[in-house]
């Protein structure tokens, strides 16, 4: 068997959050904690108010994730709320950094954790395509070469030179998704983005995504609570629970595992 190229690989990935209010709340406490750390002593603020969910209680959102995704795989990530799905995507898309462990990435990553990131209401649809495209990592030349396809895909040709603030929410989503669907990056990260928009458009987007993935060997990491879209798009699925991977493999078995737990 030929050796498959790795797209994303995580090793011992861990992310901790502190519970309660961030920082000591006062500069004095922060300085105390800092001074204690400098002398390698115990943080004097750790023990205070330990009854309540206090600032120094740690919450482990991701607990040692070892995951290897190969080029061209379409991986669904499922799990209950708070299982760490979004945190994983945030770490891979470099929005925040891990507490421990490392992530290796081959190729350009585009993350769609929200539809229409960076859209500006005062700009027209066309201007927003350029802006949104650039935010997602496209150069102006790339957008130039694709703008006609993007507009056609969005089904809102008529309104493309109207300011986006006058759009209905459906039009907004369609435009935003069209930009994302035409990205050239090797790795696509999507978090629940398809939950919005009508069924027909959802299907159109999924098919488009699946097609590019199959034809160009694009890697997709997709988080959703909608099992139908997972079935339609993915060829591998992992189940997260409490920051750990509890199942990795076949889509149907993963969904079964998720429904049981």
């Amino acid at each position, binding site marked *: 068997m030929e050796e498959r190229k*790795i797209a994303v*690989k995580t*090793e011992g990935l861990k992310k901790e*959050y502190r519970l309660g209010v*961030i*920082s000591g709340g006062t*500069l004095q406490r*922060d300085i105390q904690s800092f001074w204690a750390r400098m002398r390698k002593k115990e943080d004097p603020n750790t023990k205070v108010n330990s009854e309540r969910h206090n600032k120094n209680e740690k919450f482990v959102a991701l607990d040692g994730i070892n995951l290897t995704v190969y080029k061209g795989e379409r991986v669904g990530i499922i799990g209950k709320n708070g299982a760490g799905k979004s945190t994983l995507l945030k*770490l*891979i*898309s*470099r*929005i*925040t*950094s*891990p*507490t*421990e*462990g*490392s*992530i*290796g*990435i*081959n*190729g350009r*990553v585009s*993350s769609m*954790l*929200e539809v229409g*990131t*960076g859209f*500006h209401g*005062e*700009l027209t649809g066309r*201007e927003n395509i*350029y*802006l949104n495209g*650039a*935010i*997602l*990592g*496209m*150069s*102006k030349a790339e957008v130039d070469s694709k703008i006609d396809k993007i507009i056609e895909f969005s089904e809102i040709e008529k309104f493309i030179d109207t300011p986006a603030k006058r759009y209905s929410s459906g039009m907004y989503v369609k435009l935003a998704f069209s930009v994302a669907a035409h990205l050239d990056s090797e790795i696509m990260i999507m978090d629940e983005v398809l939950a919005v928009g009508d069924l027909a458009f959802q299907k159109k987007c999924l098919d488009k995504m699946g097609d590019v993935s199959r034809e160009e060997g694009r890697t997709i990491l997709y988080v959703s609570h909608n099992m139908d879209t997972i079935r339609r798009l993915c060829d591998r699925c992992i189940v997260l629970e409490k920051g750990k991977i509890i199942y990795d493999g076949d889509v149907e078995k993963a969904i079964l595992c998720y429904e049981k737990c």
Partner: protein
Amino acid sequence: MKEKFDTLITAKKNPFKLNIRETVKYKDLIWLFVQRDFKTKYKQTILGPLWFIIQPLLTTFIFTIVFGQIARLSTDGVPQFLFYLAGNVPWLFFSACLTHTSSTFYSNARLFGKVYFPRIVSPISTVITCFFNFLIQFVMFLLIDIVFILIGASAKITLYALLFPLLILQLGLLGMSVGIIISSLTVKYRDLQVLVGFGVQLLMYLSPVVYSVSSIPNSTLRNIILLNPVTPSIEFLRIGFLGSGSTPWIYLAISFCVTLVLAFFSVVVFNKTERNFIDKI
């Protein structure tokens, strides 16, 4: 890890690293942010881009009344309106760079929380927007300056005017560095953000905007004002475009050194902040 990767994300990062190559890749984004800021600023206003020059003209007009006519501060023989305008235009550039970059993390939190691009793109595009703003205002100043010179007012353009690009670079870099440091510190403590608003206003009175350094009677006070890193550049601009005043070169050198140190410091603080700020803001 054993394998080789294009990008490797780890828990620690070198704080002195300025990711220039990656930032250059996003030059189109910088440019689009600048365009967005220009296009949206005066949408649905009647006067539109005229606002760019109305603001400095109005403030200069008020300065002329208050400091020129009422307080009668010396302007080294230069027509008052011209004198205040020459101080006001570069000052507005500096203060805009500072105040606008100082809210980088805070006002972009939503965007930064959803998508990755080198965060430094935001303050850079802000400063470029401020620069174009300034350029428009400066051309206006230059035209007024030339008109005054032609009708025989006591002002002249000297060879020092050639320092213009260097002085503007210093003011922009200084404003951006201080702004970035403030924005990094305000991720946790919002106090500084409150301070910025009126702090900049107060700083204006410690800079030679409505007076000239040569008119300060007390020599200790004069030296303190000269150590303000904004002072030498504004003074040298006046020497260049009005032919008034004189400032020892050493103070210009000091202000450049201070600027470079602050710029270096701001890179370190920014790098440290950008990695995890989204968990803290």
